[in-house]
């Protein structure tokens, strides 16, 4: 068993355990922390695949920025333990065995009929010096469009999260 396989299995185990813990926890803050564990483990997987820059961005943007936003919202709204409501019995009876069967089938097909050749670890240079030219030459237009998307998202978030006009706070000029 090579070192790469051992590392893959270790990071994969952490990721799957975190994902299952996300489902098992009832308090959203615990779910958020296990999601951070999943993202950190995935950054390790990206490093194994030679995608150094993606791994760094995963930690900084996903585990850092986006999850901080989530944790802030959970704290701001004072979210408590999830209230359990009764779901559909038929969905549980047929859904869980069906999902298990489907995932087993997909896993069997993937393991049997595809990807017999191994992915060489670090075979592809994913450092910023190789990603940068690609991002600023070939993908320049999508890159610029995403900046507009981010701008629209910022304005939308400000508009949506600002106080409604009927709030007791008197409206200020420019609101």
């Amino acid at each position, binding site marked *: 068993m090579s070192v790469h396989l051992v590392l893959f299995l270790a990071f994969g185990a952490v*990721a799957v355990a975190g*994902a299952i813990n996300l489902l098992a926890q009832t308090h959203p803050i615990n779910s958020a922390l296990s999601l951070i564990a999943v993202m950190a483990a*995935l950054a390790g997987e990206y490093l194994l695949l030679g995608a150094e820059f993606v791994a760094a961005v995963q930690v900084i943007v*996903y585990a850092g920025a*986006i999850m901080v936003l989530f944790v802030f919202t959970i704290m701001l709204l004072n979210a408590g333990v*999830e209230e359990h409501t009764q779901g559909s019995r038929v969905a549980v009876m047929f859904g869980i065995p069906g999902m298990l069967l489907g995932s087993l089938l997909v896993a069997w097909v*993937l393991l049997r009929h595809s990807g017999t*050749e*191994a992915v060489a670890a670090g075979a592809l240079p994913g450092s910023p010096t190789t990603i940068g030219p690609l991002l600023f030459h070939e993908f320049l237009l999508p890159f610029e469009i995403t900046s507009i998307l981010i701008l629209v998202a910022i304005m*939308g978030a400000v508009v949506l999260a600002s106080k409604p006009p009927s709030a007791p706070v008197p409206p200020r000029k420019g609101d």
Partner: protein
Amino acid sequence: MVPLSYYLVLSGILFACGVTGFLIKRNIITIFMSIELMLNGVNLSFVAFAAHWHALAGQVFVFFVMVVAAAEAAVGLAIIIAVYRTRETLNVDQVNLLKL
């Protein structure tokens, strides 16, 4: 050396966990986190295919997915705050009217 299919199976497991969380969770924030989990599973398969086919463009796509996820998180959490302000609940079962 790790076969490509192992990465794809891991990515599928994460995506399936995300779908399950989306369906069984009742807290709107946890449902939102399940969506992020699904996006992460897809990102892993993007990077694995990029390494497999020696196509660096796959890694650039991961950035675009992350940008869209960030925009989605910002707008989605703002919507959650607006919903909480009018309904005072985070349970999706109690958010069942379009209008107050």
